């Protein structure tokens, strides 16, 4: 292993090392507060290690990894969301009955798994990353093990994720049978001169799509989403919604671009069906929900559908649009879940819509953060979500996918209704002037609010001055 290999793998090594370090700290019986601060520092260190990699790129580490600017961007996003989740966790878990320390070990492992996915160029690293991520999530989802919903969610996720991993593995095996290789680029070579897709390969690809579909929670593989989002602790839900999906999207994109899957009409048709179904079903199911976590779950189904719209055209614009949309979606989703986490108390999460009544007058700042996040999810101008949607529409219309564009627009109109409903609840009712209980952890409350404010500023910044980020993501080339 050369020095450069070492530098290129630095973020992954740091994350792996961090989990071990935190484990040692737990053995040393340090307090929750210290562990929280140390892991925060570790996240920051691994995030900043990305900066040193710029000159190296692109840097393939054969055969497992391809470290290019798209991958590093995705790693950055994933570590960033891990960092935000980490910050939000203190207040949330300090109140809870379960000892929170081991939580941080799992968080590092999951982040590591997602990052491995983002740079993997080989089935082995893909599967390894996915399993590191998923196994960690089993435990994280059911972390508050005395609660019925958590256990239900944990079991549900365990069974479905295990199933989908099996599908994925079988699919990989079939593809290996057809092409005789597990590396993406070698596979592309094996497929370069076939006009129609070989049946075994198609079969394998279909099975892989089932597996990936489960992880991404796109229709028709979305059944687990609402229950798991609701049952998992809020910071973990935020992590599932962002980092775990981001990693899978990244590897899927890399795989598709490598084998140039966009030239097979049948496959594209399949993806179009999945995208349309996700957009429509996700938005429709969210309409009647009364629980904010469930609303956000269904909305995430729809958003993955939107993301597929950017994915399908297969043009050079795809990596840019996907990266930008993921950035916008990550920032927005983290802000939304952050507010839920901060408002949650010892007994229950702030998930019922009733609890948000008159929030505008009780906690104007939190309410503004949540509304800007929701407006961004709805895709209203001045927010990141609008620029992201614009990017997606531009990508798909440029390649002539008008149907997808129209469905996207129509379904986001449906989506407006439930986002607005949450906002309406927040300003309906009047302040009952019950004095708010004294904040128990002023320091961490301050940090959380600071992070949430930064996220909100980012949401608006990306909506008003997106040019910097756009010209950055425009350099991404996957081939």
């Amino acid at each position, binding site marked *: 292993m050369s020095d450069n290999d070492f530098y290129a793998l630095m973020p992954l090594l740091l994350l792996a090392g961090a989990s071990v370090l935190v484990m040692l700290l737990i053995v040393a019986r340090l307090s929750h507060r210290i562990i929280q601060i140390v892991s925060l520092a570790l996240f920051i260190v691994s995030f900043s290690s990305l900066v040193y990699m710029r000159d190296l790129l692109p840097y393939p580490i054969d055969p497992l990894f391809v470290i290019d600017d798209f991958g590093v961007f995705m790693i950055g996003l994933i570590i960033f969301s891990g960092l935000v989740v980490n910050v939000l966790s203190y207040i949330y878990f300090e109140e809870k009955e379960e000892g929170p320390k081991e939580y941080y070990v799992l968080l590092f492992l999951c982040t590591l798994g997602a990052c491995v996915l983002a740079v993997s160029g080989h089935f082995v690293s893909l599967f390894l990353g996915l399993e590191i991520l998923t196994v960690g999530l089993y435990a994280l989802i059911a972390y508050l093990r005395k609660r019925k919903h958590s256990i239900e969610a944990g079991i549900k996720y365990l069974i479905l994720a295990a199933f989908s991993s099996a599908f994925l593995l079988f699919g990989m095996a079939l593809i290996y049978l057809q092409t005789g290789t597990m590396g993406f680029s070698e596979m592309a070579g094996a497929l370069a001169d076939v006009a129609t897709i070989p049946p075994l390969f198609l079969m394998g690809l279909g099975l892989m799509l089932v597996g990936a579909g489960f992880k991404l929670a796109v229709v028709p593989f979305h059944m687990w989403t609402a229950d798991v989002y609701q049952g998992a602790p809020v910071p973990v839900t935020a992590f599932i919604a962002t980092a775990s999906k981001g990693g899978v999207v990244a590897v899927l994109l890399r795989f598709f671009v490598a084998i140039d899957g966009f030239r097979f009409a049948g496959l594209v048709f399949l993806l179009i069906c999945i995208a349309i179904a996700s957009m429509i079903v996700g938005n429709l199911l969210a309409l009647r929900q009364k629980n904010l976590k469930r609303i956000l779950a269904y909305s995430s189904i729809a958003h993955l559908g939107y993301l597929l719209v950017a994915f399908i055209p297969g043009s050079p614009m795809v990596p840019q649009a996907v990266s930008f949309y993921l950035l916008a979606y990550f920032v927005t989703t983290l802000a939304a879940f952050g507010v839920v986490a901060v408002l949650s108390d010892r007994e229950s999460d702030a998930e019922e819509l009733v609890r948000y009544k008159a929030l505008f007058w009780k906690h104007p700042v939190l309410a503004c953060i949540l509304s800007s996040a929701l407006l961004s999810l709805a895709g209203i101008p001045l927010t990141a979500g609008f620029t992201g949607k614009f990017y997606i529409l531009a990508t798909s*219309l440029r390649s002539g996918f008008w149907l997808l564009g129209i469905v996207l627009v129509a379904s986001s*109109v449906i989506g407006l209704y439930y986002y607005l409903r949450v906002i309406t609840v927040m300003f309906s009712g009047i302040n009952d002037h019950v004095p708010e209980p004294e904040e128990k952890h002023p320091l961490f409350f301050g940090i959380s609010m600071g992070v949430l404010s930064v996220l909100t500023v980012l949401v608006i910044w990306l909506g008003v001055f997106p040019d910097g980020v756009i010209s950055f993501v425009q350099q991404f080339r996957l081939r």
Partner: protein
Amino acid sequence: MMLALLIVILMAGGLTALLAGKWNKSFPRWIALISSTAGFLILLLFWIDQHQVVQVSSDQNWLVQYQKDWILSFGITFHLAIDGLSLLLLVLTFFMGILAVLCSWEEIRERTGFYYFNLLWILAGVAGVFMAMDLFLFYFFWEVMLIPMYFLIGIWGSENRVYAAYKFFIFTQASGLLMFLAILGLYFIHGNNTGVYTFSYVELTGTVIPSQVAIWLMMGFMVAFAVKLPVVPFHTWLPDAHGEAPTAGSLILAGLLLKTGAYGMLRFVIPLFPEAARQVAVPAMVLGVAGIVYGALLAYSQTDLKRLVAFTSVSHMGFVLMGIFAFNELALQGVVMQIVTHAISTGALFILAGMIKERLHTRDMNLMGGLWTQMPRLGTIGMVFAMASLGLPGLGSFIAEFLILLGAFHAHFWITVVAASGLIFSAVYSLRIVQKIFLGPEKGAGHIPDFSRREMVIMAALTVSIVWLGLYPQPVINTAKPAVVRLVQLLQPDSDIKSEQSYVR
């Protein structure tokens, strides 16, 4: 620079009001008043300064413009520019803004900071819409005015406010998104034709679009503007939104938001798709007439004063639609006049409705009656604006509707005949307002105070303007003339404009 300054004043004023509202309940309204007055004065000075230039400017020469790069990767620029038409509408925007602040002076006591923030941001959005010369920027401002309006209706409205706010938002947003698709379609067609991907209005006006596609793209734009205007099948959000909004909200909705629809048709639909617009001219005029008659009939059957006024808007906006698609100078000048006078007369009626509601705590006309004896001033002014609404000569609306009918007569005989019956209907509903509310036996008991000084100022400003527009509309006509002539030339490249100029000098 002036143009950007106008928007900055409003947006910054809004933010300051929001912050100042934390300390003192009356700071925000002063801030709002100062910022809207400042904008108004700037524009007025500019208008007076430029009034010679305004009338002669021809071709695509803007009076003043401001351009700055925004999102270069997609060819989006921050390009503001105005011609005479935009200038008129901007002046109207700030005028209405001042009145809106004044008429919420006492009405709004709760959460004043957030209220004036929303008010000023709506104005900023509207002002931006009237200035934007980049289609992306236009859509951006189009949406910016939406959210604050949603809050305005949803928080400070009356009983059924939440429903009305939803309806308003979803109607306008859905239609806006269709427009956005059409904008993107235009963007890519232009890009494919020329290799230059840009949202610039000036460049896109020359785009060669296959006529089959042009119809669809134009429909995308038309839907958005038709919902805003509103054109009859898309009008159902309007009575709810107008009825439930606070007074200032109704004033801005009627006075400004509806006008953005008309402006959009004049500025975008016709110049971008002249061919396609000509194909739909007759159906559009029929829809306009349907609006005139239908709005008037429904207005007559309302018992809720604000809903009544809302339906009169539908009727008056029917004239606008008919005038736009008559495609000649007379009718288009009438449209511009109608835009301005309708804002003033209907705005005044909404303010009156608000004032009556403040005193009687009801909008139900069956519970009113004989208010003239108790409030002679309010009665007189109410009479003036009811007359303006029915198009009495001497008041601005007469000029507007007369010009539109005259122009439409050239374009289509029978449609105009039906439309002219609208004048009779409007007399019926306007007189009903006067009779039900101001005349007849007294219903309410107890002393009701007449106009306060602040209310006098508001009403005086409105009355003076409507009479001025009725007696001497020439400045407005002159200001709008270059823009109107350009539109006509676009539609009838070979027609002799000179011969028609004798009608409207």
